[in-house]
């Protein structure tokens, strides 16, 4: 017996709809299996991991805090991926956005103004966009692969941040801890509700998702993204420029990642430090694919992936397993999402006869 993938006559709409759910179910099953092999009760552990956080106001706020950057980054990446540009460096653009956004509160701590926060957010977006412009320049000028260049730039951004907070930007009164001075109250992104820490980044995320959904669905720009992503030659025939699209897609996703970065620093942390992200920029790739590269779907998938972060923390506290487990869950999820997506275009056929290997078309 062997398993064959047989191409469907047309894409299955049923599987396009259930593939993310199927992936979730498979992830839960294999996650439970993993807990069981570790000697834990799989049901109880999964409950702690995925359900318990949803019954607590505090953790719901934490969920929103973690989902916001994921959604912000992922909607930008979705546009980028749809245009066939593979920005893998959102983590670096996030970091660079956090750095450029922090220039004002760190270097001009005396400036107290209502314009401070908007200026920081704009500078954060600019920083992320310009940083994503480097792979765009390299791709359009030298035909380099943006997957490699954007990924390598992540490590440069992270080490640059590390050097800043240990060197020139270190808080003189900080007992030699590698961190900058704490931001002034005017530089802090306000909380949304009195009940918890969730801040305005969540609003940015929802607005960005809806705006980009509208663009993809109703605007010529969205059409241009899809055309160039699917057939570059046809895009040229339509008068669209694929070079300009490289710049647009990378800088858009870079700007949103930069906005997520400065929002995280300003809203959740309050200063710069060597580590400001638990890998949001990479996890957002999973969010984008789980949400079918659709900005509205990404809102839902962002919440799901945020839950894996929370669950990891909960599991560490109450069950005593490493919070690396959330990475395992994210990996499982990406694996199953991509595998289940295969079923949209292919069906699985079990062939029982012992016939010879087919070489025909």
């Amino acid at each position, binding site marked *: 017996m062997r398993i064959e993938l047989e191409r469907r*006559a*047309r894409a299955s709409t049923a599987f396009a709809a259930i593939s993310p759910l199927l992936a979730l179910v498979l992830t839960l099953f294999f996650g439970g299996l993993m807990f069981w092999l570790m000697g834990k009760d799989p049901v109880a552990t999964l409950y702690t991991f995925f359900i318990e956080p949803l019954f607590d106001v505090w953790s719901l706020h934490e969920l929103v805090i973690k989902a916001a950057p994921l959604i912000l980054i992922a909607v930008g990446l979705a546009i980028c991926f749809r245009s066939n540009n593979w920005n893998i460096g959102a983590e670096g653009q996030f970091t660079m956005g956090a750095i450029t956004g922090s220039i004002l509160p760190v270097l001009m701590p005396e400036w107290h103004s209502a314009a401070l926060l908007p200026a920081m957010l704009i500078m954060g977006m600019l920083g992320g966009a310009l940083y994503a412009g480097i792979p765009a320049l390299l791709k359009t000028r030298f035909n380099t692969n943006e997957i490699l260049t954007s990924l390598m730039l992540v490590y440069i951004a992270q080490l640059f941040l590390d050097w800043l907070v240990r060197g020139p930007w270190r808080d003189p009164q900080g007992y030699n801890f590698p961190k900058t001075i704490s931001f002034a109250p005017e530089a802090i992104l306000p909380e949304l509700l009195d009940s918890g820490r969730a801040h305005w980044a969540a609003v940015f995320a929802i607005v960005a998702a809806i705006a980009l959904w509208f663009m993809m669905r*109703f*605007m*010529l*720009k969205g*059409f241009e993204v*899809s*055309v160039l992503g*699917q*057939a570059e*030659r*046809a895009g*040229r*025939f*339509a*008068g669209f420029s694929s070079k300009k699209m490289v710049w647009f897609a990378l800088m858009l996703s870079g700007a949103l990642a930069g906005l997520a970065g400065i929002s995280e620093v300003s809203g959740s942390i309050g200063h710069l430090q060597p580590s400001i992200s638990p890998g949001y920029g990479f996890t957002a790739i999973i969010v984008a694919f789980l949400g079918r590269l659709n900005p509205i779907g990404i809102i839902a998938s962002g919440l799901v992936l945020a839950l894996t972060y929370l669950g990891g923390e909960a599991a560490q506290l109450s069950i005593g397993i490493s919070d690396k487990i959330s990475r395992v869950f994210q990996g499982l999820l990406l694996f199953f999402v991509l595998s289940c997506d295969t079923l949209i275009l292919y069906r699985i056929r079990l*062939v029982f*006869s012992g*016939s*010879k*290997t*087919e*070489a*025909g*078309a």
Partner: protein
Amino acid sequence: MVSSQDQGEPSLLSVRGLTKLFGTFAACDGIDLDIAPGEIHALLGENGAGKSTLVKMLFGVLQPSSGQILWQGKPVSISSPGQARDLGIGMVFQHFSLFEALTVGENIALSLDPKISLSKISEEAASLSKAYGLPLDPKMHVADLSVGERQRIEIVRALLQNPKLIILDEPTSVLTPQEADRLFETLFKLKAEGRSVLYISHRLDEVQRICDRATVLRHGKVTGVCDPRQETPASLARMMVGSDVAAVHREDLGTPGEVLLDVKSMSFAPRTPFAVSLKNVSMSVRAGEVLAIAGVAGNGQGELFDVLSGEYPVADHDAIKIRGTSVGRTRINGRRLLGAGFVPEERHGHAAVSQMSLSDNLLLARAHSDRKAFLAGGLGKVIRHGAVKAATARICQVMDVRKSGEDPTAGSLSGGNLQKFIVGRELDRQPSVLVVNQPTWGVDAGAASRIRQALIDLAKSGSAVVVISQDLDEIFEVATSIAVISEGRLSDAYPAGTLSLERIGLLMGGIHDSTQHASHAGEAADAH
């Protein structure tokens, strides 16, 4: 209709009432087919007539919804290509499935019993290929072979299974005339050995030349079984298309008007190592004229289209003029705004995005030129889907585009129907200059005649039309004047009436003797 059953001889393969449904659509509807031993049997039909579906069922790639297949009189169900091969059916697909990085011998071995050694297979393949006049060197890498040689691998691979029936799907569509002749000799050898051949084609002259009998399909049904040699091309075409193929009607187009497209000593360097450079190309096309550009494939036709369309602008702004305006450096949408329309050769991925709907594909070519109708919201450029869909429906109706739903994806249409849509998309806006590359390439006779008529009608209404084509029949049908492109150089244009086929043939090779030498050298290498 000639009945096939009165020969008394038992059929090798019979098909009774074979039906294949895709949803509610019957791709094949109650098909009867008989293939006698030792005959070359043609399966004729337009694109989308159900030929491929039928053949896939015979080869076990698809399963019939109902009906029966009889092999040597016994009912069989063919559930896989492997089983079809075991029965004695071999198939040569239109699109090859070869690994370019492997040698000929390795490619053949892959489809055979893994227990047989590679050297034995190579030996057998070499002797077999020699016996059938299909010279092949088993040690050559596939990547280095021509299309014709690759097809030979597929044929030899099928022959190694010692089949009683060989199915060939549009085998000559990829071959040069010389290669096709060699293929026909092989088919006659196979026939002489008592093997049967099912030959799928829509080239009527070939079918008349080599086939003993023909079964004609239309819309999934058998519309005739005949001896093609007793028929005329017109009567065969009638069976294929259902009515007489409308002869393209071209009265005198009147005296040409003003020059609408003017190209003066334009040169264009090759973009890629495989591209042809355009050298000093000049032409001028007047209102009411159809200028056909003949030439053998790969002599700069694609490059000429790229430059005329503005997909790749030229440095000299004055080298190209549309309606008196210099457009050399103007891009495609700027040229469209001046009233030009363009139809590229490649339907999938150039003229249309296969995965997108027809209405999206309409927007593809006309978002800019029709932005008042199709876009709203000023700078926001919001697409007015309603208006685009209405225009799509209008075009489909005018051009008789047959499709399976309200707004299906471009990829789901047959080649002819998609081409009608792509041409109709431009005609719908009455372009004053239309540049078309290979308008009826791989398109069935009915659609081809409709498209050609539309081109002539457009010229008659006062537009300038440029048709780049390799099909000389098409050129003589539509052109008022003819120029020939060879190695990136364009000849002067001659009035269509003054040029004979021979003259064009000379022009194709005559400008540069080196072309001919090159092709002769290629053939010699080919034959070892």
